């Protein structure tokens, strides 16, 4: 019965030096697990949860560490950008300060120095700290393969099931595109995780409301840790489109989320907390505007 996990010190590691080389290796060796910062992979490996025959180490690919303007006025973030580097970027601050807020709650400093935004996305944990924010910001993921080149997939279409994503076996996540900040947007991030660092969330809320002349013209409410995938909240979003801001929209939360009892918390608690943190956000938007 005891866990017989062991570190496979003999596991082969493929070491591409360029993105093209990485994509070719990925195509030739789809069984090689891509390795970015390793902050999830190493823990899973040690716990015996994963047992890949080899790794594709992406860490040297500096080309994936750029943060740059996009022609559309937004920002393109290389998949290997660490949580720490997001916090140091003026571009990210300008367009997506809420993403920096989320990045600052991941693990603790050491994890933030090593863990990457791309890793958080591809790992696709329902508790991934940044994922609800990416959903709320309408992020678009740039995936690439040696054979077909790049394609774009909206965050909302990326998370398919528990730890299942739209990433194909020969693809790598290259970059994350975020649209330009709109002056009418109110954004919010809330992670509920019992302690203030080194916490795995019980509930995560990423939210964005675009309010024009007192009317909500766009609503993005996204959740983590309340279902098998990070998810948008369509019923709440629909209820919010209108005027004035419906601060009782949290009543719709139950229609959208599927929390469970697990080792960290209970379904009841998660649902109640989701409703509460949403209500407090909506009230704060009303107060800010009045």
């Amino acid at each position, binding site marked *: 019965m*005891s866990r017989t996990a062991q570190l496979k010190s003999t596991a082969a590691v493929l070491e591409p030096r360029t993105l093209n080389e990485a994509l070719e290796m990925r195509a030739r060796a789809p069984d090689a697990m891509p390795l970015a910062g390793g902050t999830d992979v190493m823990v899973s490996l040690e716990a015996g949860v994963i047992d890949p025959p080899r790794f594709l180490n992406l860490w040297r690919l500096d080309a994936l560490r750029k943060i740059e303007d996009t022609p559309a006025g937004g920002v393109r973030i290389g998949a290997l950008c660490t949580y720490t580097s997001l916090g140091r970027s003026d571009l990210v601050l300008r367009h997506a300060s809420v993403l920096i807020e989320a990045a600052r709650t991941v693990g603790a400093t050491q994890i933030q120095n090593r863990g990457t935004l791309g890793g958080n996305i591809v790992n696709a944990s329902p508790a991934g700290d940044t994922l609800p924010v990416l959903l709320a910001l309408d992020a678009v993921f740039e995936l690439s393969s040696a054979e077909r080149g790049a394609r774009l997939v909206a965050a909302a279409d990326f998370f398919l099931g528990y730890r299942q994503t739209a990433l194909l076996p020969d693809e790598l996540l290259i970059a994350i595109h975020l649209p330009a900040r709109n002056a009418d947007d109110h954004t*919010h991030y*809330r992670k*509920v995780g019992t302690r203030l660092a080194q916490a795995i969330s019980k509930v995560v809320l990423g939210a964005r409301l675009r309010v024009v002349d007192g009317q909500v013209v766009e609503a993005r409410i996204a959740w983590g840790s309340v279902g098998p995938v990070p998810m948008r909240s369509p019923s709440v979003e629909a209820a919010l489109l209108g005027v004035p801001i419906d601060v009782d929209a949290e009543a719709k939360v139950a229609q959208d989320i599927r929390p469970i009892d697990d080792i960290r918390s209970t379904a009841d608690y998660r649902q109640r907390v989701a409703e509460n943190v949403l209500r407090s956000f909506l009230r704060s938007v009303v107060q800010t505007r009045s």
Partner: protein
Amino acid sequence: MIGEGLVRADGQAKVTGRAVYVDDVRPEGCLYAATVRSPFAHARITGIRLDPDFDFSDVTVVTAADIPGENVVALMTDDQPALADKVVRHVMEPVALVAAPTREKALAAVSHILVDYEPLPALFDPERSRGHEPSLFGSDNVYSHITLVHGDPDGAFASAEGNADVRIIEGTYRVGLQEQLYIEPQGMIATHRVDAEGAPGLTLFGSMQCPFYVVKALSRVLGHKRFNVVQAVTGGGFGGKEEYPSLVAIHAALLALKSGKSVKLIYRRDEDLRATTKRHPCRLRYRTVVEVRTGRLLAFDGHMLFDGGAYNTLSPVVNSRGVIHAVGPYRCENVRSEALMVATNTPPNGAFRGFGAPQVQFAAERHLDRIARELGLDPLDVRRVNLYRDGDLTPTGQTLKDIGAKIVLEAALERAQRPLPPGNGSGRPGGGGQAARLAAGRGLALAWHGCGFTGNGEANLQGKADLALEGRDLRVYTSSTDIGQGTETIFPQIVAAALGIGVGRVSVAPPDTDLVPDSGPTVASRTAMVVGGVVLKAAQALRAALASEVGFDGDFDAMLDARTSDAVLRVREQYADDGTLVWDPKTYRGDAYPTFGWSCVIVDLEVDLDTGEVLYRRLVQATDVGRALNPVLASGQLEGGALQALGYATSEEVVLDERGCMRNDRLTNYIIPTALDAPEMETVLIEIPFAGGPFGAKGIGEIPHDVPHAAVAQAIERATGAVLDRLPMMPERVMAALERRR
């Protein structure tokens, strides 16, 4: 020297990574060990076989059949086997051991030891243990049952009926398991040696609090004492390395004997969390007769039910401390305090900082809050009217003198004067910002803690210490271990102060049972106060011996200059009390402890009304330490202990599965506070000297863990009106209580 905040002797090596922990050592040709553990809470073992398809050629396997002496972990009773033989009584119980040239091979071999079990009915509910089936311990599953009676509680309850001036107030309180969570898991290395007489034997080197516990336990299993035990640098203990390392050492030794090689046995974190001892859970029912006008305690009737788990370990001593501390630091002339410690099929519970006192004083403080609530009184006034004063008798009939109860209360109140945080949601770390809804509250709790062993414990033990003059320098030899609390720093301070020399000339010998005398275990807040006192006596004896050698008593260096020999001068002293303490362990009457520590804790916090999470803002504690030998280390002990209690309060929950096995066996899901979660701390050291301690020092290791969790419960109640009488107050429970309140 005394009272100086000298830098800790072990600090630099630890923060620079040079300190050598047991897992840093790899002896030549060392084998790696792993443990085959029971998957059942209760089962009969019908066979142990080796998988014929697995290559065991380089694997050493040990079962109970390989034990040369007795199959027992000798402690208070001999109920716990070193390796389960016919029956397993808890999940994760060791059944067999393996050692192999690599850790990977050892771990793989574990799953190829095929153990046949016949499951038996298991017992998990302590309420249904005493006198019930299955039979786990003795005739009735009771490890310890103590009833302490003081005054006439029956008469007081009887005369309360129909008396409008008094009221009977009852409450039930519950506390859960808590993990010690030393940062370094359990670990031991057994190596072969030849002793000074040329006899073959073993050396056990590992992480531990009590080297002579290991000697006692291992000698029974081996049937001889041809071994020594050496403490490695130890990454925390908190009681979790009091008795448990005996088992780890036995296992490493058995494998080393059978394999003929050195063996290293290090627990994985998850294994350590699932297998090792925890703080005893407890259900407490308190009934009191109180004066309606003031809340004064007229009679107390308390019943405690502790869950000891599958083996006795040190549970009777926890039960004892629970009985004695049950009322808290409050005077009551009519007391019945009854505690039952029963067996269940969960892993054994054992020593943990506070040793019963944190459980019962949570109930005592919550009960005073209940009295205040039911009578419409201020909880602080209820404490003031009941707090011990000089000359009061404790429930064991001990007369208190020079006590700090009121002094620590006033000192903490004075320091805490600054107002509460605004509670408007600003500055909520971890996200939430302006949107968070926070309610601020302040809570206060008081503790007493008997220092050192109970009753005649110290007199019976006669803890010893040696001091040697080696050249012009001195070396202290004790079995007291530094587990992070500062032993290696304060013993030299004591010797240097006594001899009038620089502290740099005094070193501490590593605890090696070949070299040091038995000073008693490093437990019970006794190292500074009791062993430190023996070290001081040794310094005085050494001075006397030197004076007689050189013919005069004067400046220490002048005496050294006058020596004609450079022979090592070594003296030994042992503990002896002054004969004034009288204790009857049969009736629980008399002087339970040589002295008590006193503490007042004030916690400022905010409750997040959306999530039930508690955010700690500030913790003020005023504690009577007798004399702070090293105020920096003393404050460190008090602050660390308080933070551990805050974890006990609101985040540390051990989740058991249906087999009694800890499910949240990772640091990611057993939630101890981080530095970010810690409040601003202010620690006031009150010094009311204890004549029996070195320079007046009292024990302080445990008292900071006694009541911060009770102060938290009061603060949550004051902030929100939510009443919580059960630990831990996880956010889920706080939310439920917030909803009940509506």
